[in-house]
């Protein structure tokens, strides 16, 4: 299934606090698009709008699956998951008192994913052998890096066509960040995913990015057509590298 996502002119936020202003992005089939920006600029808010956790005040979010278009605005998170979009939330949000394997099983909650559960479980255990070793351990008792593995693996268990990843690097040691980013690329290639990743860690994110956006105060400040353009952008130097 070829899925792509188009966000057109959305305004959104929390109650009367508007975070996103007339924001538009596109994620084409098979791409890895990164959303760069430091804390509080609206990356997570945008992902929450796509997943249906927040309803935007204006605009549309078009999911295109093999030419069939659906507006996701107003859909519940359950409906968005059912449509094939899976999110790895910021801060991992595991079920700490359940085992690793129970967390993964819950990832396959949607009807479509249940049919492929054993195949997907084998797949994520192959990508993250550590999780197989620890599958009966409580998720809350694992290290940060392992928890992030569970979160990403759980996102894959719903057998998505589009994977949203919100700040996979938060709270991880630098070598683990690079490992995690590499795993996301591996998953993307093996599962033919379309990936939208929000990140603050610019250096790591551009390693797997095909394209990207820089988001500042809820608006797209810069659209980069390639990873090179991101890397050589003045604004990035200013925001991230302090040059």
């Amino acid at each position, binding site marked *: 299934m070829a899925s792509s996502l188009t966000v057109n002119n959305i305004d959104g936020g929390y109650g009367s606090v508007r975070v996103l202003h007339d924001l538009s992005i596109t994620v084409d089939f098979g791409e890895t698009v990164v959303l760069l920006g430091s804390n509080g600029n609206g990356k997570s808010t945008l992902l929450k709008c796509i997943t249906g*956790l927040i309803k935007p005040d204006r605009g549309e979010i078009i999911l295109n699956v093999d030419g069939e278009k659906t507006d996701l605005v107003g859909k519940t*998170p*359950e409906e968005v998951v059912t449509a094939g979009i899976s999110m790895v939330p910021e801060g991992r949000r595991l*079920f*700490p*008192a*359940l085992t690793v394997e129970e967390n993964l099983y*819950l990832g396959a909650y949607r009807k479509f994913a249940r049919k492929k559960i054993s195949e997907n479980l084998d797949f994520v255990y192959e990508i993250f052998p550590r999780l197989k070793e620890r599958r009966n351990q*409580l998720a809350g008792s694992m290290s940060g890096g392992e928890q992030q593995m569970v979160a990403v693996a759980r996102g894959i268990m719903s057998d998505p066509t589009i994977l949203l990843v919100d700040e996979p690097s938060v709270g991880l040691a630098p070598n683990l960040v690079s490992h995690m980013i590499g795993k996301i690329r591996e998953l993307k290639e093996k599962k033919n995913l379309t990936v939208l990743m929000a990140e603050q860690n610019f250096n790591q994110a551009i390693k797997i990015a095909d394209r990207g956006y820089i988001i500042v105060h809820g608006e797209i400040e810069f659209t980069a057509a390639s990873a090179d353009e991101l890397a050589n952008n003045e604004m990035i130097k200013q925001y991230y590298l302090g040059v």
Partner: protein
Amino acid sequence: MIELFINAVVAGVLLGGFYAAVALGLSIVFGRLDIVNIAHPAFVIIGSYMAFYVNENFGLDPIVTSFLFLPVFFLLGIVMYRFYYVCFERTGQESLSGLAYFFGIMFIIEVLIILVYGVDYRNVQAPYIGHSLWINDWIPLGDFRVSLPYRMLVPFVVAAVVTGGVYLYLSKTYLGRAILAVSQDRVALQLMGANPIKVKQWAFGIAIATAAIAGALLIVIHPVEPSVGRLYIGRVFAIVILGGMGSISGTFFAALMIGIAETLISTFIGPSWAPAAAYGILLVTLAVRPQGLFGRA
């Protein structure tokens, strides 16, 4: 002395099985959904009176009756949770108002039963009530006489089977696992494609359905009057906490423990001390092992 002891332990195990049936629903609702449903024993009493009514008028076995009425209790649970959700949980006032809500429901149930049936004790007829299984007939125990009254044995077996069923349901089905997860992170559960409100509603339905069975077991064990449910509130909460808040197997073993402790105390110290067993064990356990005896973390 030893004969007395063995009989007390056996009786305690059987009694504990019944306690597990009462605690089962609360283990789901209080242990897993974090909802303090103190009206749970009152639903057990409804189950008893329903079994009584059908038994009196149609002569049907109380336990069979309770299984026939499971869908009704399931719906009752769903309605009760809906109301709780719309009025309290959605607006974030569940902690205090919710407690008052369940208190209110408990009193309303009691008063309704009193209005319909009065305050007299009611009991049921079943072929197994009044007989005992003598272990001596099966195993030669020498001088010891050990008996299992069927009015205790049948409830124990039913409780064990129902507990096992709920345990399997929660650990092996998607909805069951969602019930285990819902209070840990409801947003994450939404991101898995589950609706937390529907999950909780379903869990409440199951919990109240188990109360129907527990009620039938109660009236098989001894006669019931409308306010007898209150005796179980503290004991059952103690069992759920001892069992490790929401661990089904833990709840079952904690219930057996309390059952054994109570019969031992009433045999050797005096029946009036028996209700103290649950709280005594709870106090000591919480001091030493705050997560409960069978808690996971």
